[in-house]
């Protein structure tokens, strides 16, 4: 039995082969994820002087302390939080509601299923351009409906701009949410729903007590993905409002972007980027520890 006689040599060769096989993935990960992350943290240690041409100065953690307590970070963070609160629950509930409606065995239901899932084929840019046109204060359909032509329009209204951008985002994500929720609903075993019907739970009670717990892993997944993508929203802000009016849609990622490219303040931008990363990690961990207790997985041991 040769494998027994030279176990170490075989093991070493296997190990080398294994490392060789994961090397490409590891290299890509290193170049595109790990290096930028370390580099960003590092950039955050250097203060960029307000006049171009002067050298950056090493300031260590003090820049983290100043930026993270400043309103130029805290206000965008609050707007991002609001944006997530506007988009995530609405997106999940609308998607779930449409999925429940589309489960009915009605004639022509396929047409509705197609319409409901259609926004998955649109990109952020396409959705933004469509709604930019619709929301245009002079020629847009919404202005016409509201009888408010020539004013600032919804996107120019400090109170309505963020909800409007959030609504566009919900609309754009609705197709994905609908497909996700439909898949979850169709995975609920028919016999369990039958059992619930015979056991006396129908309608809303059956939905709340049986269906929702059974699709909770999907709801949980949609929640986490929604929060992360909500905090990372950029395209719709850039195309619809550029952070305006007067900073009322200046969410965190957009603030990082303008700080980096327009103000050329790489140090401040880097600090905020690291902060966003840490916030997302902590939020995801929190969701896992708090929400997951209420999530049921069917293959639980």
């Amino acid at each position, binding site marked *: 039995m040769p494998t027994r006689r030279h176990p170490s040599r075989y093991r070493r060769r296997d190990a080398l082969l294994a490392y060789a096989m994961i090397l490409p993935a590891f290299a890509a990960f290193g170049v595109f994820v790990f290096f930028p992350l370390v580099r960003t943290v590092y950039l955050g240690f250097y203060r960029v002087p307000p006049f171009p041409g002067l050298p950056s100065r090493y300031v260590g953690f003090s820049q983290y302390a100043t930026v993270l307590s400043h309103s130029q970070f805290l206000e965008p963070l609050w707007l991002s939080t609001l944006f997530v609160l506007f988009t995530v629950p609405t997106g999940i509930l609308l998607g779930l509601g449409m999925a429940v409606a589309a489960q009915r065995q009605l004639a022509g239901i396929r047409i509705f299923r197609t319409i409901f899932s259609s926004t998955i084929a649109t990109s952020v840019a396409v959705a933004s351009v469509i709604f930019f046109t619709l929301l245009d204060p002079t020629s847009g359909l919404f202005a016409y409906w509201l009888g408010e032509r020539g004013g600032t329009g919804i996107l120019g209204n400090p109170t309505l701009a963020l909800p409007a951008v959030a609504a566009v985002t919900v609309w754009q994500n609705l197709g994905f949410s609908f497909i996700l929720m439909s898949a979850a609903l169709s995975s609920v075993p028919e016999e369990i729903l*039958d059992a619930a019907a015979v056991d006396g739970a129908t309608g809303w009670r059956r939905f709340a007590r049986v269906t929702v717990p059974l699709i909770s892993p999907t709801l949980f997944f949609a929640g986490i993905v929604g929060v992360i993508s909500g905090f990372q929203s950029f395209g719709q802000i850039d195309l619809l409002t550029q952070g305006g009016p007067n900073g009322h849609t200046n969410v965190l990622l957009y603030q990082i972007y303008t700080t980096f490219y327009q103000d050329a303040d790489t140090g401040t931008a880097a600090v905020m980027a690291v902060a966003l990363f840490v916030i997302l990690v902590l939020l995801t961990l929190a969701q896992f520890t708090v929400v997951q207790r209420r999530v049921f997985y069917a293959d639980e041991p």
Partner: protein
Amino acid sequence: MASAVGLEAVEKRYGASTLALSSLTLRAEAGELLVLLGPSGCGKSTALRIVAGLERPTSGTVRIGERIVNDVEPKDRDVAMVFQSYALYPHLTVRKNMEFPLRSRRVPAAERERRVREAARALHLEDLLDRRPAQLSGGQRQRVALARAIVRDPAVYLMDEPLSNLDARLRVEMRAELIELHRRSGTTIVYVTHDQVEAMTMGDRVAILREGVLQQVGTPAEVHDRPANSFVASFIGSPPMNLLPGELLGEPGVTAGVRPEDLAIEPGGPVAARVSLVESLGHEHHVACRIGGDGGPLAIVRIPAAGRPPLPGDEVRLGVRGALHRFDPATGERVGR
């Protein structure tokens, strides 16, 4: 209180072409254990689901007790159902699973507690009450499914192949427990199975269905001893009844049915055959013979293990020692007595 269950001329169509049940009239008396037996796709599960209210009949009347329930919701029919997949609520503990139908009916907490305790004791689930279904074995899940039905104390139990996901040994055990449960509770049970052994051992009466059409209803002894047609004859009994051209057994013009235990290998018997296969089960042997030699129709003879079985290739003589059933070769219907 146990209630009778009646189906009167119940028909079920899916779309225009598929006829799942064809004018089924059948009654389970109060307190009776009625088995619906048939191969898969025969409509037995559809019939059960119609009684439960999970399917609506295309036409016909469904009664539970004396009440017509065609338009009554499943939850208001006072039936409890046990499913083949058990259909336990996977996110709830055993206790919560058992409480579920009681909570739906707003049974007070003290009463709920009492009923769950009683059912758990009856089915040996006391130690498992705080577990989730995923942490239970198949047999335990089956017991929880039964317990969830028992706590309801319904007028009728509907059971859809409840034992077919269990292994052979557990199935025999659970079969005994079900019979015991039926005897103790005295409740009506409509029980669907494709397993004729289950049907024969459990049923007060057995209803045999084929392609949506009722073939025969009777006690296990009746359907075994006087099958109404050749389908019932071949479906009941293991190994199945031999159906042979009548002229081979001196009964020209009919299909002759002889159960394997009613055939015997005897020197000087009237029928010549050649042994093609011998299966020894320990307590008995099943001897497959070609009548008239190779290429002839196959007949199975069941002989007790005490006798020494013949060997494949042996020439033997067969005789009919028990009942001989006669069926119309064209329709399969029973001829004569």
